[in-house]
């Protein structure tokens, strides 16, 4: 029964899946306009899971601090919009550009400093980085310190704001997906997997491992920065600890979604993000204050009993069909 279902899923060509999902995504905010912001959050989650998986899944480097690039994007875009004095859309475009560049550059810097560190030292170093950034932002007056930043008002008609940001977020998620899909197929993608499988051997084969890791982190930072700039505008308000550098929500969710879907795969994080976001929105409201306890329990349960994720489970179930000799 399950195998039949998996066979059928596998039989769908990827282009048909992409076109179908794309059409649904384009039409969705018109069919259910009240859910536009919710659906935009879904695309944000997809970006989170995919960008986490670049290091976590493809490179085997588990980062707990990727949310720092999201936060940098939030603030970079907001500061440009506040101080540039340009018309709304020009300022937004310039802000997004600045957000992407700043996130990319900071990833290159942090990567050069931290990506020589391996294993749990790296994981905990990134955890420290993310929280230190949130605490620093909460004390820096120029960006509003602990009281946060309010974003400029959207100039369009009522209801057009949600649609606009939905499509921008969708475009970022799509661009992220196709960029990663392309990268995973190149020599660079193979080099990333080689580092995950055996870093010493990869280095002995002449790969510049630290450079590859840093560039990979910068790519994921680029999309996180863009998503941060848009998300700040979409939410209308940036709080240093609860929105921008929110390690306890976004920072944990991105890890959880990627693992749930299956880390180290292209579709796994997308699938994980969709499933997690939908279940979260359906059940969270019924948990009445116990959401975060449930989140913690969910992490423990998934990590202990389901560490390979949905894609990993499907692959293990159909080893022969996936091309693994049994």
């Amino acid at each position, binding site marked *: 029964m399950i195998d039949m279902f998996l066979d059928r899923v596998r039989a769908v060509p990827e282009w048909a899946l992409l076109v179908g999902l794309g059409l649904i995504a384009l039409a969705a905010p018109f069919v259910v306009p009240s859910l536009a912001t919710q659906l935009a959050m879904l695309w944000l989650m997809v970006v989170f899971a995919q960008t986490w998986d670049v290091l976590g899944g493809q490179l085997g480097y*588990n980062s707990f601090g990727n949310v720092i690039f999201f936060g940098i994007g939030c603030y970079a875009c907001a500061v440009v919009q506040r101080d540039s004095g340009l018309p709304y859309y020009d300022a937004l475009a310039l802000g997004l550009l600045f957000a992407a560049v700043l996130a990319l550059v900071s990833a290159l810097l942090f990567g050069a400093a*931290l990506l*020589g560190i391996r294993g749990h030292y790296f*994981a905990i170093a990134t955890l420290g980085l993310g929280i*230190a950034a949130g605490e620093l932002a909460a004390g820096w007056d120029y960006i509003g310190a602990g009281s946060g930043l309010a974003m400029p008002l959207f100039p369009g008609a009522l209801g057009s704001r949600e649609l606009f940001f939905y499509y921008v977020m969708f475009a970022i998620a799509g661009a992220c997906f196709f960029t990663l899909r392309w990268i995973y197929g190149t020599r660079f993608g193979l080099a990333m997997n080689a580092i995950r499988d055996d870093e010493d051997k990869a280095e002995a084969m002449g790969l510049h491992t630290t450079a590859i890791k840093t560039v990979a982190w910068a790519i994921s930072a680029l999309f996180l920065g863009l998503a941060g700039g848009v998300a700040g505008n979409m939410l209308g308000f940036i709080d240093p600890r609860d929105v921008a550098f929110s390690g306890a929500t976004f920072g944990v969710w991105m890890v959880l979604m990627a*693992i749930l879907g299956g880390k180290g795969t292209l579709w796994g994080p997308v699938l994980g993000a969709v499933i997690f976001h939908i279940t979260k929105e359906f059940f969270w409201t019924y948990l009445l204050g116990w959401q975060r306890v449930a989140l*913690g329990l969910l992490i423990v349960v998934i990590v202990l009993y389901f560490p390979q994720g949905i894609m990993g489970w499907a692959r293990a179930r159909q080893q022969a069909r996936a091309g693994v000799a049994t």
Partner: protein
Amino acid sequence: MTDNLILLLQNPSFALDVVLNGLLAGAIFALAAYGMSLVWGVLNIVNIVQGELVVLGGYITFVTIGAGVPALVALPLSALVMFGVGFALYYTVIFRVIDKDLFISILATFGLSIVIQQLMNTVFGSDVRSIDTGLGSFYMLDGAVTVAWIKIVACALALVSGLALWTFLRYARLGQAIRATAQNPRAAHILGIDTSRVYAITYGLNGALCGAAGSLAVMAWTIHPYIGLPYTVRSFMIVVVAGLGNVGGVVAAGLSLGALENVAGFVFGAEYQIAFVFALMVLILVWRNWRAARRRTYLA
């Protein structure tokens, strides 16, 4: 910022006050760090839930003292309860992650830390809690240096616990079994040591150390549900600097961290103290890795 630094440099007695209070706080960090060092060395797990165990120990003391138990009884009681908590955590979650890769153990203990943190927030509320032990303060240099007696007591108790732990690990049969398991679990198992029981006791012992640390923290300082992670990071940092299985190093590193943190908190402002702790950890790791890279190795 520079004003504060100048103030500190021009008033030696005031500087002494800041450093001394920091040193005494450092003893509590060292106590939690012994536990982390033990779990890391024996179970090969970086225990992210460490700080939450400290805070939970603090809440247990807060509740028991609130119910009229004297402070001298509340401290061992908290350690005992936390030994049980650690034991229970081992048999529910930790034993499953021992032979898995490091990432699984980090994420699983991270998940546990969220669970405990949020449970504490639900049960005890998010207010900052503290207990006044009524021991008064100790004055030096015409009142320029003020140290609460409870902080001195806390520091002494932390050092005594450290010494007791060291003696236990070195001379007691069970302590020797723990060290044997840390060195080579397979060989220890063959020689008749029940390694899974040793793991459980080690984790319970870690819980007891955290419980004692938390108990001292609530008496000498303050606790709230979200202060756990800084304790975890401090313990991690102390163990990284001191090295595994080095009790003396843990004490030295813990005291220095406490002093450094208090001075930094004064110079940069108290709102940056947590940022300082986390940034310092990142810097220490980067520096250690840079040193290792010069020997053509890496931190892993």
